[in-house]
């Protein structure tokens, strides 16, 4: 159980990068971007293709980020220059990317134009490279001993290196995002999502800001896809289906639990939301009468609950607050009245 949950935390931290991308479009730009389902796979397939061809995994991941950025910019151009509705721009780009992703993966094969998947079983990845450095440090053995002998768990994760490296990557991205959203360009992007007319009257080109915002968002999504492909040692054309809903679920769950008072706090909320989602997912999978194929339904239910419950809780809280206030006031009046009589 511990090892299984540990795995979902690792994955959750990687998916958090995708969720930060979704936060950037969905919340900051107020643009419901469905490109995500496609650009996640674009990142995964670009990285997997290059790794399969023997390139350095770091370079492959970098190219995946660039590919995602371009995909996002295309969606932005469809919307701003082509005047296509935001949802439709994303959907169009998403289905276009499906074919493009098959072609990208096809580049890794000598005898085929398209490929539906790329296994990376014996290839070097970012994680395997880090692992060879990490295992020399001997920290894993020490921690495994601690968990098995001292804390008494049956199983322990095979390594702590992966969780460390993904945590560092995700936190770096979080801090860059926090900083970026406070820069002059970042402020202009946020204002674009908030009040387009206002920011235009302060000499900002909302069209290029939308394109830039979508580019950055999908670059993050593709980065996440590239890492997931290397983590699970597999890239597949269908691995992105429902990704936007998972991203939204993470954003909404995180915001509901941790709040959105400042940007610093919101980005932490989004990352935590992604991890919590993965944990719920892992627990749901362990229930006997549920099948793996039920996961999409469970995801939908989680999102619906995360959307509806906070409203309900807020209402309850306000009602209780009001009732408390009223009884307090009644008490004050009684006291005042009593004094008067005396």
């Amino acid at each position, binding site marked *: 159980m511990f090892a299984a949950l540990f795995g979902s935390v690792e994955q959750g931290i990687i998916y958090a990068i995708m969720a930060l991308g979704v936060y950037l479009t969905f919340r900051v730009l107020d643009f419901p971007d469905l490109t995500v389902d496609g650009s996640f796979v674009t990142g995964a397939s670009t990285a997997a293709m290059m790794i399969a061809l023997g390139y350095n995994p770091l370079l492959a991941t970098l190219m995946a980020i660039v590919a995602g950025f371009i995909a996002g910019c295309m969606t932005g151009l469809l919307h701003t220059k082509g005047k296509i509705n935001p949802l439709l721009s994303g959907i169009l780009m998403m289905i276009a990317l499906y074919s493009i992703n098959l072609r990208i993966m096809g580049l890794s094969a000598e005898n085929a134009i398209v490929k539906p998947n790329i296994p990376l079983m014996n290839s070097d990845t970012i994680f395997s490279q880090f692992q060879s450095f990490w295992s020399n440090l001997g920290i894993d053995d020490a921690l495994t001993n601690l968990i098995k002998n001292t804390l008494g768990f049956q199983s322990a994760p095979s390594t702590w290196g992966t969780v460390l490296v993904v945590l560092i990557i995700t936190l770096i991205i979080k801090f860059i995002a926090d900083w970026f959203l406070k820069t002059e*360009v970042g*402020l202009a992007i*946020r204002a674009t999502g908030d009040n387009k*007319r206002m920011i*235009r*009257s*302060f000499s900002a080109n*909302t069209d290029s800001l939308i394109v830039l915002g979508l580019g950055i968002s999908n670059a993050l999504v593709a980065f996440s896809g590239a890492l997931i492909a290397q983590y699970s040692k597999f890239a597949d054309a269908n691995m992105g289906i429902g990704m936007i809903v998972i991203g939204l679920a993470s954003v909404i769950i995180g915001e509901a639990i941790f709040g959105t008072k400042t940007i610093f706090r919101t980005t932490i909320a989004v990352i935590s939301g992604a991890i919590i989602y993965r944990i719920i997912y892992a627990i749901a999978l362990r229930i006997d009468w549920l099948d793996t194929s039920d996961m999409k339904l469970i995801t939908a239910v989680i999102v619906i609950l995360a959307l509806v419950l906070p409203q309900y809780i807020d209402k309850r809280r306000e009602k209780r607050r009001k009732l408390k206030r009223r009884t307090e006031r009644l008490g004050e009046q009684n006291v005042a009245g009593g004094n008067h009589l005396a």
Partner: protein
Amino acid sequence: MLKLEGINKIFNEATPDEKIALDNINLHLAPGDFVTIIGSNGAGKSTMMNMISGALTPDFGTVTIDGKDVTRLPEYKRSHYIGRVFQDPMAGTAPSMTIEENVAIAYSRNAKRQLRSGSNRERRDFFRTSLEKLHLNLENRLNAKVGMLSGGERQALSLLMATFTKPAILLLDEHTAALDPSRAELITNLTKQLVEEGNLTTLMVTHNMQQAIDLGNRLIMMDKGQIILSIDEAKKPTLTIPDLMSEFEKIRGEKMNSDRALLG
């Protein structure tokens, strides 16, 4: 400072809904001029403002700001030179961002936006001293979300944001119309103060005749897409509402038909 020459604009041309919005408009503003614009609904006041700001482009004619022909320049580029306050108090600020962030956005209007922090200690001090002019205690609420402010406070903030980078032209589009009388007076006084301090070349549309007479050194009246009356600096100080009404009747041969315009 601002020159409109031979501006024409027809909406829905060659359809049954054709409407001549602006009909050969010529207007020159010297630096420091403060022109108030009155006219009934549909006279073309807002269309003219949109022509100047770049939200609309004319069918014919040229717009020149500070000697530069800006007729084909898109709105976001032109707004380097133009500060604008809208009628809707919600339109000029970003509600989910803080006061400081809003002011920082306005501050970076003049230069190309870069990847550097929108606010630092030096700028924050400048923002504080600027906000003090409003006397609304906003300088001590820099981290409050603008959406929490009242309509009057938001409009005052919009006005400050539009003016404190000293734009070449200031456009005020009925910016007190949506406020209650006491708030409207506050904004009117603030307008006077900020325009005088910055010696800003200003165009103000208003439905309030008294306000049009009280503010500024020049006044123009528009009707059916034309400038039908222009009062210059010499005559403006002695102008009264009855003067304006009788001038209108003389020119158009009919009584002024807008009740809103009468309710000064």
